[in-house]
């Protein structure tokens, strides 16, 4: 059971990490919208076309694809990392389980079914399909969000691509045709590769480097070979 060190913490301090990143997300999304409309309009001027307003831009396929192509890759990153770390280890990394612990582990280790303590979530205790689903709910949600945002990226990308085609005096393509276009795959791969680099780097850097006080790092004095500790 988790020991609550600060029982007097209110909602904000108890949820500071989620709230801070929620706020940063909104600020940076607005930043993307402001810089995006400026960039879009600079291209419009170059092409001798009328500039668009802020509202028109943030409801355009151009903005939608730029947002969605990044979201889908983030959810893919977390999906793959969540699933890969079940079966793959990195000796010495705070991001990894100990070598030898690969796999979904026993019910006792996972504290489910009859091994569940009294404060376990109901679906962890109940057994059957509900425990099976709840046992994979984090990966399932990330997978669903990845597919949803990738689909949205494909649809918005299709609309933006066709708008660009017409601007260049070329024919628009069908949705299936767009899925075969280099534009769609280039947008996908250029985001995916950066996510794979980020998680791979983190897994190995966490073996040899420390960030004092961060649970993403081992405690500063822990040996490089020590795996799975967080500080």
């Amino acid at each position, binding site marked *: 059971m988790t020991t609550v060190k600060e029982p007097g913490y209110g909602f904000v301090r108890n949820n500071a990490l989620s709230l801070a990143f929620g706020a940063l997300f909104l600020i940076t999304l607005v930043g993307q919208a402001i810089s995006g409309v400026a960039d879009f309009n600079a291209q419009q001027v170059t092409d001798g076309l009328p500039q668009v307003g802020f509202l028109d831009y943030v409801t355009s396929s151009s903005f939608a694809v730029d947002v969605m192509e990044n979201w889908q890759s983030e959810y893919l990153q977390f999906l793959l990392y969540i699933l890969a770390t079940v079966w793959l280890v990195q000796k010495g990394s705070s991001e990894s389980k100990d070598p030898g612990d690969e796999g979904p582990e026993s019910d006792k280790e996972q504290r489910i079914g009859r091994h569940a303590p009294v404060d376990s979530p109901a679906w962890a205790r109940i057994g059957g399909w509900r425990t099976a689903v709840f046992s994979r709910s984090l990966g399932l949600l990330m997978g669903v969000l990845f597919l949803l945002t990738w689909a949205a990226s494909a649809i918005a990308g299709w609309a933006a691509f066709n*708008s660009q085609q*017409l601007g260049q005096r*070329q024919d628009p393509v069908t949705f299936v045709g767009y899925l075969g276009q280099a534009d769609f795959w280039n947008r996908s791969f250029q985001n995916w590769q950066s996510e794979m680099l980020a998680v791979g780097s983190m897994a190995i850097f966490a073996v040899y480097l420390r960030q004092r006080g961060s649970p993403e790092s081992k405690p500063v004095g822990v040996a490089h070979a020590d795996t799975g500790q967080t500080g």
Partner: protein
Amino acid sequence: MLAGAGLLAALLTGCASASEPDVAKVATAFEDPSGDAQARCDLLAPATLATFQSDSSAPCADALGDVQLPGGEVSSVEIWGGDAQVRLGSDTLFLTRTDTGWKVTAAGCQSRGQEPYDCEVDGP
């Protein structure tokens, strides 16, 4: 998931289909040989108008009669974002949305397959 994707698709295509009559009307009026020449020139996007007059070395209304624009019935309209394509008779036109309505960016266009269309009237 599919609902979200469907909503996005409906948003993108729904907005587009609402503009189809306006786009078709501008394209038809521009290609109408019996229409007032100056009124037809007013349907050109500014950059296209400037390029056309520069290339023709004449005011648009004077030069327009020398261009082969066959006119005819609208057979299809495609709208994507602020850009549109209209097939009209044997001709193809491209339009853009402006604050003052849809304007023609290129007309008298013939397909060259994968290459951009070859247009009698076009922008820079």
